Protein backbone atom coordinates (compact mmCIF):
# COMPACT_ATOMS: atom_id res chain seq x y z
CA UNK A 1 0.00 0.00 0.00
CA UNK A 2 1.26 3.47 -0.85
CA UNK A 3 0.44 5.71 2.11
CA UNK A 4 0.68 8.84 -0.01
CA UNK A 5 -2.02 7.85 -2.42
CA UNK A 6 -5.11 8.75 -0.34
CA UNK A 7 -3.68 12.14 0.64
CA UNK A 8 -4.08 13.49 -2.87
CA UNK A 9 -7.82 12.87 -2.97
CA UNK A 10 -9.47 12.34 0.42
CA UNK A 11 -12.64 10.34 -0.13
CA UNK A 12 -15.95 11.67 1.20
CA UNK A 13 -16.74 10.60 4.80
CA UNK A 14 -18.10 7.09 5.05
CA UNK A 15 -16.72 6.10 1.65
CA UNK A 16 -13.91 3.57 1.50
CA UNK A 17 -10.57 5.21 0.62
CA UNK A 18 -9.22 4.52 -2.86
CA UNK A 19 -6.62 1.91 -2.12
CA UNK A 20 -6.43 -1.86 -2.11
CA UNK A 21 -7.91 -2.41 1.36
CA UNK A 22 -11.57 -3.38 1.44
CA UNK A 23 -12.87 -1.58 4.50
CA UNK A 24 -16.56 -1.18 3.72
CA UNK A 25 -17.74 -4.06 5.93
CA UNK A 26 -15.50 -2.94 8.78
CA UNK A 27 -16.84 0.61 8.57
CA UNK A 28 -20.42 -0.69 8.43
CA UNK A 29 -19.85 -2.82 11.53
CA UNK A 30 -18.40 0.11 13.44
CA UNK A 31 -21.24 2.37 12.34
CA UNK A 32 -23.83 -0.22 13.39
CA UNK A 33 -22.25 -0.80 16.79
CA UNK A 34 -22.22 2.93 17.52
CA UNK A 35 -18.54 2.90 18.40
CA UNK A 36 -16.50 6.10 18.25
CA UNK A 37 -16.48 7.74 14.86
CA UNK A 38 -13.01 7.98 13.36
CA UNK A 39 -11.23 11.30 13.73
CA UNK A 40 -8.20 11.20 11.43
CA UNK A 41 -8.06 11.90 7.74
CA UNK A 42 -9.62 8.97 5.91
CA UNK A 43 -6.97 6.62 4.56
CA UNK A 44 -4.12 8.07 6.62
CA UNK A 45 -2.04 5.78 8.78
CA UNK A 46 -3.50 7.41 11.90
CA UNK A 47 -7.00 6.80 10.57
CA UNK A 48 -6.23 3.15 9.81
CA UNK A 49 -4.82 2.72 13.31
CA UNK A 50 -8.01 4.20 14.73
CA UNK A 51 -10.03 1.86 12.58
CA UNK A 52 -8.04 -1.15 13.80
CA UNK A 53 -8.34 -0.01 17.43
CA UNK A 54 -12.08 0.35 17.03
CA UNK A 55 -12.33 -3.15 15.51
CA UNK A 56 -10.22 -4.59 18.32
CA UNK A 57 -12.47 -2.91 20.84
CA UNK A 58 -15.52 -4.28 19.06
CA UNK A 59 -14.18 -7.84 18.98
CA UNK A 60 -13.20 -7.76 22.64
CA UNK A 61 -16.68 -6.86 23.90
CA UNK A 62 -19.87 -8.77 24.37
CA UNK A 63 -22.46 -7.30 22.01
CA UNK A 64 -25.40 -7.43 24.44
CA UNK A 65 -23.82 -6.05 27.61
CA UNK A 66 -20.77 -4.16 26.36
CA UNK A 67 -18.72 -6.10 28.94
CA UNK A 68 -15.54 -7.96 28.05
CA UNK A 69 -16.26 -11.16 26.14
CA UNK A 70 -14.85 -14.61 26.80
CA UNK A 71 -11.89 -14.09 24.48
CA UNK A 72 -10.78 -10.94 26.27
CA UNK A 73 -11.38 -12.50 29.64
CA UNK A 74 -9.21 -15.53 28.95
CA UNK A 75 -6.39 -13.25 27.84
CA UNK A 76 -6.76 -11.19 31.01
CA UNK A 77 -6.76 -14.36 33.10
CA UNK A 78 -3.51 -15.55 31.52
CA UNK A 79 -1.94 -12.16 32.21
CA UNK A 80 -3.14 -12.30 35.80
CA UNK A 81 -1.65 -15.77 36.26
CA UNK A 82 1.70 -14.45 35.06
CA UNK A 83 1.43 -11.52 37.42
CA UNK A 84 0.52 -13.71 40.39
CA UNK A 85 3.37 -16.09 39.61
CA UNK A 86 5.79 -13.19 39.75
CA UNK A 87 4.37 -11.02 42.49
CA UNK A 88 2.74 -13.61 44.72
CA UNK A 89 -0.27 -11.33 45.16
CA UNK A 90 -3.55 -13.12 45.71
CA UNK A 91 -6.10 -12.94 42.89
CA UNK A 92 -9.69 -14.13 42.96
CA UNK A 93 -11.71 -15.54 40.09
CA UNK A 94 -15.49 -15.49 40.47
CA UNK A 95 -17.86 -17.23 38.13
CA UNK A 96 -21.57 -16.39 38.27
CA UNK A 97 -24.70 -17.79 36.76
CA UNK A 98 -28.19 -16.28 36.85
CA UNK A 99 -30.49 -18.65 38.74
CA UNK A 100 -33.46 -20.13 36.85
CA UNK A 101 -32.81 -17.91 33.87
CA UNK A 102 -34.87 -20.16 31.62
CA UNK A 103 -37.94 -19.24 33.67
CA UNK A 104 -37.36 -15.55 32.89
CA UNK A 105 -37.27 -16.34 29.18
CA UNK A 106 -40.26 -18.67 29.37
CA UNK A 107 -42.39 -16.31 31.45
CA UNK A 108 -41.45 -12.90 30.10
CA UNK A 109 -39.95 -13.60 26.68
CA UNK A 110 -36.47 -13.40 25.26
CA UNK A 111 -36.41 -9.61 25.06
CA UNK A 112 -36.97 -9.57 28.84
CA UNK A 113 -34.20 -12.15 29.18
CA UNK A 114 -31.85 -9.80 27.34
CA UNK A 115 -32.83 -6.93 29.63
CA UNK A 116 -32.10 -9.09 32.67
CA UNK A 117 -28.69 -10.08 31.34
CA UNK A 118 -27.87 -6.43 30.68
CA UNK A 119 -29.03 -5.34 34.12
CA UNK A 120 -27.06 -8.07 35.88
CA UNK A 121 -23.97 -7.16 33.85
CA UNK A 122 -24.39 -3.53 34.84
CA UNK A 123 -24.89 -4.44 38.52
CA UNK A 124 -21.68 -6.50 38.46
CA UNK A 125 -19.72 -3.73 36.78
CA UNK A 126 -21.05 -1.25 39.37
CA UNK A 127 -20.04 -3.45 42.31
CA UNK A 128 -16.39 -4.15 41.54
CA UNK A 129 -13.26 -2.01 41.65
CA UNK A 130 -11.91 -0.29 38.54
CA UNK A 131 -9.05 -2.79 38.22
CA UNK A 132 -11.40 -5.80 38.27
CA UNK A 133 -12.56 -7.21 34.97
CA UNK A 134 -16.15 -8.33 34.46
CA UNK A 135 -16.96 -10.47 31.43
CA UNK A 136 -20.00 -12.14 29.98
CA UNK A 137 -18.84 -15.65 29.15
CA UNK A 138 -21.97 -16.56 27.22
CA UNK A 139 -25.65 -17.19 27.95
CA UNK A 140 -26.43 -16.18 31.52
CA UNK A 141 -22.89 -16.77 32.75
CA UNK A 142 -20.46 -14.10 33.89
CA UNK A 143 -16.93 -14.12 35.27
CA UNK A 144 -14.93 -11.59 37.23
CA UNK A 145 -11.22 -11.55 37.91
CA UNK A 146 -10.14 -9.51 40.91
CA UNK A 147 -6.39 -8.84 41.09
CA UNK A 148 -4.77 -8.26 44.45
CA UNK A 149 -7.77 -9.48 46.44
CA UNK A 150 -6.69 -10.74 49.88
CA UNK A 151 -8.10 -14.16 50.77
CA UNK A 152 -9.91 -12.78 53.81
CA UNK A 153 -11.99 -10.43 51.62
CA UNK A 154 -13.01 -13.11 49.11
CA UNK A 155 -16.27 -14.16 50.78
CA UNK A 156 -17.24 -10.52 51.44
CA UNK A 157 -16.69 -9.55 47.82
CA UNK A 158 -18.65 -12.54 46.52
CA UNK A 159 -21.53 -11.82 48.90
CA UNK A 160 -21.59 -8.11 48.06
CA UNK A 161 -21.97 -8.99 44.39
CA UNK A 162 -24.65 -11.59 45.06
CA UNK A 163 -26.69 -9.22 47.26
CA UNK A 164 -26.35 -6.38 44.79
CA UNK A 165 -27.86 -8.48 42.00
CA UNK A 166 -30.68 -9.71 44.23
CA UNK A 167 -31.53 -6.09 45.09
CA UNK A 168 -31.51 -4.83 41.51
CA UNK A 169 -35.02 -4.67 40.03
CA UNK A 170 -35.22 -5.07 36.25
CA UNK A 171 -38.10 -3.45 34.39
CA UNK A 172 -38.96 -6.15 31.86
CA UNK A 173 -42.11 -4.45 30.55
CA UNK A 174 -43.32 -0.94 31.34
CA UNK A 175 -44.49 -0.98 34.94
CA UNK A 176 -43.40 -4.57 35.57
CA UNK A 177 -40.15 -5.20 37.42
CA UNK A 178 -38.63 -8.51 38.41
CA UNK A 179 -35.52 -9.45 40.33
CA UNK A 180 -33.21 -12.36 39.70
CA UNK A 181 -30.55 -13.98 41.83
CA UNK A 182 -27.12 -15.34 40.99
CA UNK A 183 -25.06 -18.23 42.26
CA UNK A 184 -21.39 -17.42 42.67
CA UNK A 185 -18.38 -19.73 42.70
CA UNK A 186 -14.87 -18.55 43.40
CA UNK A 187 -11.27 -19.74 43.55
CA UNK A 188 -8.04 -17.93 44.28
CA UNK A 189 -5.07 -18.20 41.97
CA UNK A 190 -2.44 -20.19 43.75
CA UNK A 191 0.34 -17.84 44.76
CA UNK A 192 3.87 -18.26 43.42
CA UNK A 193 3.16 -21.12 41.09
CA UNK A 194 1.96 -21.18 37.52
CA UNK A 195 -1.43 -22.49 36.64
CA UNK A 196 -3.53 -22.32 33.49
CA UNK A 197 -6.64 -20.22 32.82
CA UNK A 198 -8.55 -23.46 32.14
CA UNK A 199 -7.59 -24.99 35.48
CA UNK A 200 -8.42 -21.83 37.38
CA UNK A 201 -11.81 -21.59 35.70
CA UNK A 202 -12.49 -25.27 36.39
CA UNK A 203 -11.88 -24.71 40.09
CA UNK A 204 -14.20 -21.71 40.21
CA UNK A 205 -16.80 -23.75 38.28
CA UNK A 206 -16.63 -26.55 40.83
CA UNK A 207 -17.57 -23.98 43.48
CA UNK A 208 -20.36 -22.59 41.27
CA UNK A 209 -21.88 -26.07 41.00
CA UNK A 210 -21.63 -26.34 44.75
CA UNK A 211 -23.50 -23.03 45.14
CA UNK A 212 -26.15 -24.26 42.69
CA UNK A 213 -26.63 -27.61 44.36
CA UNK A 214 -26.72 -26.02 47.81
CA UNK A 215 -29.86 -24.18 46.72
CA UNK A 216 -28.73 -21.23 44.51
CA UNK A 217 -28.62 -17.51 45.40
CA UNK A 218 -25.44 -18.09 47.37
CA UNK A 219 -21.69 -17.87 46.99
CA UNK A 220 -19.15 -20.64 47.54
CA UNK A 221 -15.41 -20.12 47.56
CA UNK A 222 -12.84 -22.85 47.35
CA UNK A 223 -11.51 -23.65 50.79
CA UNK A 224 -7.93 -22.46 51.10
CA UNK A 225 -6.16 -25.50 52.48
CA UNK A 226 -6.42 -27.88 49.55
CA UNK A 227 -3.59 -30.02 50.85
CA UNK A 228 -5.58 -31.18 53.86
CA UNK A 229 -6.53 -34.81 53.59
CA UNK A 230 -9.92 -35.52 55.12
CA UNK A 231 -10.76 -38.59 57.16
CA UNK A 232 -13.02 -39.64 54.30
CA UNK A 233 -10.15 -39.50 51.84
CA UNK A 234 -7.89 -41.44 54.16
CA UNK A 235 -10.66 -43.99 54.55
CA UNK A 236 -10.76 -44.57 50.81
CA UNK A 237 -6.97 -44.45 50.51
CA UNK A 238 -6.60 -47.29 52.99
CA UNK A 239 -9.83 -49.03 52.03
CA UNK A 240 -8.16 -52.23 50.95
CA UNK A 241 -5.99 -52.65 53.97
CA UNK A 242 -2.49 -53.97 53.51
CA UNK A 243 -2.93 -53.50 49.77
CA UNK A 244 -3.83 -56.98 48.70
CA UNK A 245 -2.02 -57.93 45.56
CA UNK A 246 -4.13 -57.71 42.53
CA UNK A 247 -3.21 -58.73 39.11
Amino acid at each position, binding site marked *: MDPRAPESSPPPPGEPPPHALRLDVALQLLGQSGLASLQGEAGSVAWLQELIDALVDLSSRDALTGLANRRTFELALAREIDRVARSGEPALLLTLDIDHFKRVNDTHGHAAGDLVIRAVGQALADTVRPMDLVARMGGEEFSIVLPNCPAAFGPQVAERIRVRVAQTPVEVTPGQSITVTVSVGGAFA*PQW*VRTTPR*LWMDRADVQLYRAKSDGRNRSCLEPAAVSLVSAEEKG*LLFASTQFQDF*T
Partner: protein
Amino acid sequence: MSGARITAVTSGKGGVGKTFVSANLAAALSRQGERVLVLDADLGLANLDVVLNLYPKLTLHDVFTGKTTLDDAILPAPGGFSVLLAGSGMIEYSRLTPEVRDQLHDVIVKVRPRFDRVLLDTGAGISDVVLYTVSLADEVLIVATPEPTSLTDAYATIKILAASQTPRPMHLLVNQTQRPGEARAIRHQLQQVIDRYVNVGLSSPLQLDLVGDVPLDAAVRDAVLRRELLLETAPGSLAAQAIVAAAARLIGR
Protein backbone atom coordinates in the same frame (compact mmCIF):
# COMPACT_ATOMS: atom_id res chain seq x y z
CA MET B 1 10.50 -26.81 24.14
CA SER B 2 14.17 -27.48 23.54
CA GLY B 3 16.73 -28.81 25.97
CA ALA B 4 16.39 -30.89 29.07
CA ARG B 5 13.21 -32.53 30.25
CA ILE B 6 12.80 -31.33 33.80
CA THR B 7 11.58 -33.89 36.28
CA ALA B 8 10.75 -32.82 39.82
CA VAL B 9 11.28 -35.58 42.36
CA THR B 10 9.11 -35.00 45.39
CA SER B 11 7.44 -37.01 48.11
CA GLY B 12 5.49 -35.05 50.67
CA LYS B 13 6.89 -37.05 53.56
CA GLY B 14 10.61 -37.04 54.26
CA GLY B 15 12.72 -40.14 54.78
CA VAL B 16 11.18 -42.19 51.99
CA GLY B 17 14.41 -42.37 50.01
CA LYS B 18 13.76 -39.46 47.66
CA THR B 19 17.38 -38.37 47.42
CA PHE B 20 18.55 -41.98 47.17
CA VAL B 21 16.14 -42.50 44.28
CA SER B 22 17.15 -39.23 42.58
CA ALA B 23 20.85 -40.08 42.67
CA ASN B 24 20.50 -43.66 41.50
CA LEU B 25 17.88 -42.80 38.90
CA ALA B 26 20.32 -40.18 37.57
CA ALA B 27 23.01 -42.84 37.30
CA ALA B 28 20.61 -45.21 35.52
CA LEU B 29 19.46 -42.47 33.13
CA SER B 30 23.11 -41.59 32.35
CA ARG B 31 23.87 -45.21 31.55
CA GLN B 32 20.96 -45.19 29.15
CA GLY B 33 22.55 -42.30 27.31
CA GLU B 34 21.04 -39.17 28.82
CA ARG B 35 23.08 -36.19 29.94
CA VAL B 36 21.67 -35.76 33.42
CA LEU B 37 21.93 -33.02 36.02
CA VAL B 38 20.63 -33.50 39.54
CA LEU B 39 19.82 -30.18 41.13
CA ASP B 40 19.57 -30.31 44.88
CA ALA B 41 16.54 -28.11 45.39
CA ASP B 42 16.18 -29.04 49.05
CA LEU B 43 17.44 -25.61 49.88
CA GLY B 44 16.91 -25.80 53.62
CA LEU B 45 18.19 -29.29 54.38
CA ALA B 46 20.27 -30.40 51.46
CA ASN B 47 21.74 -33.88 51.64
CA LEU B 48 22.55 -34.95 48.12
CA ASP B 49 26.19 -34.25 48.99
CA VAL B 50 25.91 -36.76 51.84
CA VAL B 51 24.34 -39.44 49.66
CA LEU B 52 27.05 -39.01 47.03
CA ASN B 53 29.90 -38.50 49.47
CA LEU B 54 30.87 -35.23 47.85
CA TYR B 55 32.48 -32.30 49.58
CA PRO B 56 31.75 -29.49 47.21
CA LYS B 57 33.72 -26.29 47.41
CA LEU B 58 31.21 -24.56 45.20
CA THR B 59 27.45 -24.80 45.56
CA LEU B 60 24.18 -23.28 44.49
CA HIS B 61 24.61 -20.93 47.40
CA ASP B 62 27.73 -19.49 45.78
CA VAL B 63 25.88 -19.15 42.49
CA PHE B 64 23.03 -17.31 44.19
CA THR B 65 25.39 -14.93 45.95
CA GLY B 66 27.45 -14.36 42.82
CA LYS B 67 30.62 -15.89 44.27
CA THR B 68 30.93 -18.30 41.39
CA THR B 69 29.53 -19.05 37.99
CA LEU B 70 27.03 -21.75 37.26
CA ASP B 71 29.64 -23.57 35.17
CA ASP B 72 32.01 -23.87 38.08
CA ALA B 73 29.33 -25.08 40.46
CA ILE B 74 28.13 -27.92 38.23
CA LEU B 75 30.21 -30.91 39.37
CA PRO B 76 30.69 -34.42 38.02
CA ALA B 77 29.16 -37.10 40.26
CA PRO B 78 30.31 -40.72 40.57
CA GLY B 79 27.48 -42.18 38.49
CA GLY B 80 28.41 -40.33 35.29
CA PHE B 81 25.95 -37.50 35.79
CA SER B 82 26.34 -33.91 36.96
CA VAL B 83 25.19 -32.34 40.19
CA LEU B 84 24.47 -28.87 41.41
CA LEU B 85 24.50 -29.07 45.17
CA ALA B 86 22.69 -26.75 47.51
CA GLY B 87 25.38 -26.90 50.16
CA SER B 88 25.19 -25.58 53.64
CA GLY B 89 24.30 -21.99 54.32
CA MET B 90 21.20 -22.29 52.21
CA ILE B 91 18.91 -22.11 55.21
CA GLU B 92 18.31 -18.47 54.41
CA TYR B 93 16.83 -19.65 51.11
CA SER B 94 14.39 -22.04 52.70
CA ARG B 95 11.70 -19.37 52.48
CA LEU B 96 10.32 -18.49 49.11
CA THR B 97 11.16 -14.87 48.50
CA PRO B 98 11.03 -13.19 45.08
CA GLU B 99 14.85 -13.41 45.03
CA VAL B 100 14.86 -17.17 45.59
CA ARG B 101 12.22 -17.61 42.89
CA ASP B 102 14.11 -15.55 40.37
CA GLN B 103 17.41 -17.26 41.19
CA LEU B 104 15.96 -20.76 40.88
CA HIS B 105 14.12 -19.90 37.70
CA ASP B 106 17.27 -18.36 36.28
CA VAL B 107 19.34 -21.46 37.06
CA ILE B 108 16.78 -23.73 35.37
CA VAL B 109 16.69 -21.57 32.26
CA LYS B 110 20.48 -21.67 32.04
CA VAL B 111 20.96 -25.42 32.57
CA ARG B 112 18.08 -26.53 30.36
CA PRO B 113 19.93 -26.28 27.01
CA ARG B 114 22.94 -28.19 28.30
CA PHE B 115 21.37 -31.44 29.49
CA ASP B 116 18.85 -34.02 28.33
CA ARG B 117 17.31 -34.30 31.77
CA VAL B 118 17.33 -32.29 34.97
CA LEU B 119 16.15 -34.01 38.14
CA LEU B 120 15.00 -31.51 40.73
CA ASP B 121 15.44 -33.16 44.10
CA THR B 122 12.97 -31.14 46.16
CA GLY B 123 12.78 -30.89 49.91
CA ALA B 124 10.33 -32.88 51.97
CA GLY B 125 6.96 -31.44 52.78
CA ILE B 126 4.66 -29.23 50.72
CA SER B 127 6.24 -25.87 51.49
CA ASP B 128 5.98 -23.00 49.06
CA VAL B 129 9.60 -23.61 48.01
CA VAL B 130 8.75 -27.21 47.12
CA LEU B 131 5.61 -26.17 45.24
CA TYR B 132 7.49 -23.49 43.38
CA THR B 133 10.30 -25.89 42.46
CA VAL B 134 7.78 -28.43 41.18
CA SER B 135 6.08 -25.71 39.13
CA LEU B 136 9.31 -25.32 37.15
CA ALA B 137 9.26 -28.95 36.02
CA ASP B 138 7.82 -30.61 32.92
CA GLU B 139 6.79 -33.70 34.85
CA VAL B 140 6.57 -34.86 38.44
CA LEU B 141 7.89 -38.04 40.02
CA ILE B 142 6.32 -38.82 43.37
CA VAL B 143 8.36 -41.12 45.58
CA ALA B 144 6.43 -42.94 48.30
CA THR B 145 6.77 -45.99 50.48
CA PRO B 146 3.90 -48.35 51.32
CA GLU B 147 3.62 -46.78 54.77
CA PRO B 148 0.27 -45.08 55.39
CA THR B 149 1.92 -41.80 56.44
CA SER B 150 3.95 -41.69 53.25
CA LEU B 151 0.90 -42.46 51.11
CA THR B 152 -1.16 -39.79 52.84
CA ASP B 153 1.54 -37.18 52.25
CA ALA B 154 2.04 -38.31 48.66
CA TYR B 155 -1.69 -37.96 48.10
CA ALA B 156 -1.73 -34.52 49.72
CA THR B 157 1.08 -33.45 47.38
CA ILE B 158 -0.73 -34.80 44.32
CA LYS B 159 -3.90 -33.08 45.43
CA ILE B 160 -2.39 -29.63 45.87
CA LEU B 161 -0.46 -29.93 42.60
CA ALA B 162 -3.56 -30.98 40.68
CA ALA B 163 -5.56 -28.12 42.13
CA SER B 164 -2.99 -25.42 41.68
CA GLN B 165 -0.55 -26.17 38.90
CA THR B 166 -0.50 -26.78 35.18
CA PRO B 167 -1.47 -30.38 34.46
CA ARG B 168 1.63 -32.42 33.68
CA PRO B 169 2.56 -36.10 33.61
CA MET B 170 2.57 -37.39 37.18
CA HIS B 171 4.68 -40.49 37.83
CA LEU B 172 4.77 -42.64 40.93
CA LEU B 173 7.70 -44.69 42.19
CA VAL B 174 7.06 -46.88 45.21
CA ASN B 175 10.17 -47.44 47.29
CA GLN B 176 10.76 -50.24 49.79
CA THR B 177 8.03 -52.56 48.57
CA GLN B 178 7.81 -55.95 50.21
CA ARG B 179 5.66 -57.90 47.78
CA PRO B 180 5.27 -58.12 44.05
CA GLY B 181 2.13 -56.28 42.99
CA GLU B 182 2.21 -54.01 46.02
CA ALA B 183 3.14 -50.92 43.99
CA ARG B 184 0.37 -51.57 41.48
CA ALA B 185 -2.14 -51.92 44.30
CA ILE B 186 -0.94 -48.65 45.80
CA ARG B 187 -1.20 -46.83 42.49
CA HIS B 188 -4.71 -48.16 42.03
CA GLN B 189 -5.75 -47.06 45.49
CA LEU B 190 -4.27 -43.57 45.04
CA GLN B 191 -5.95 -43.27 41.65
CA GLN B 192 -9.31 -44.18 43.16
CA VAL B 193 -9.06 -41.42 45.75
CA ILE B 194 -7.80 -38.98 43.09
CA ASP B 195 -10.76 -39.81 40.82
CA ARG B 196 -13.20 -39.32 43.65
CA TYR B 197 -11.78 -36.19 45.30
CA VAL B 198 -9.32 -34.51 42.94
CA ASN B 199 -10.44 -35.12 39.37
CA VAL B 200 -14.00 -33.91 39.98
CA GLY B 201 -14.62 -30.99 37.64
CA LEU B 202 -11.11 -30.91 36.16
CA SER B 203 -10.86 -30.64 32.36
CA SER B 204 -7.69 -32.73 32.36
CA PRO B 205 -8.22 -35.46 34.94
CA LEU B 206 -5.02 -36.61 36.57
CA GLN B 207 -3.77 -40.10 35.76
CA LEU B 208 -1.05 -41.42 37.98
CA ASP B 209 1.58 -43.39 36.04
CA LEU B 210 3.52 -46.08 37.89
CA VAL B 211 7.15 -45.96 36.74
CA GLY B 212 8.20 -48.73 39.01
CA ASP B 213 8.82 -50.08 42.46
CA VAL B 214 12.07 -50.57 44.30
CA PRO B 215 11.93 -53.61 46.58
CA LEU B 216 13.18 -53.49 50.12
CA ASP B 217 16.74 -54.73 49.69
CA ALA B 218 19.63 -55.06 52.12
CA ALA B 219 21.93 -53.86 49.34
CA VAL B 220 20.29 -50.43 49.55
CA ARG B 221 21.12 -50.05 53.21
CA ASP B 222 24.71 -51.08 52.53
CA ALA B 223 25.12 -48.58 49.73
CA VAL B 224 23.55 -45.76 51.75
CA LEU B 225 25.80 -46.45 54.75
CA ARG B 226 28.86 -46.56 52.53
CA ARG B 227 27.60 -43.38 50.88
CA GLU B 228 27.89 -44.89 47.45
CA LEU B 229 25.50 -45.32 44.58
CA LEU B 230 23.61 -48.59 44.65
CA LEU B 231 24.15 -48.85 40.90
CA GLU B 232 27.91 -48.86 41.53
CA THR B 233 28.14 -51.06 44.62
CA ALA B 234 25.46 -53.62 43.80
CA PRO B 235 24.40 -53.26 40.19
CA GLY B 236 23.01 -56.78 40.19
CA SER B 237 20.75 -56.28 43.21
CA LEU B 238 16.99 -56.38 42.77
CA ALA B 239 16.71 -52.75 43.87
CA ALA B 240 19.32 -51.60 41.34
CA GLN B 241 17.59 -53.51 38.55
CA ALA B 242 14.29 -51.94 39.55
CA ILE B 243 15.79 -48.45 39.33
CA VAL B 244 17.23 -49.20 35.89
CA ALA B 245 13.78 -50.36 34.78
CA ALA B 246 12.16 -47.21 36.18
CA ALA B 247 14.68 -45.06 34.29
CA ALA B 248 13.86 -46.89 31.06
CA ARG B 249 10.18 -46.24 31.63
CA LEU B 250 10.80 -42.53 32.29
CA ILE B 251 12.79 -42.25 29.06
CA GLY B 252 10.18 -44.21 27.18
CA ARG B 253 7.61 -41.44 27.46
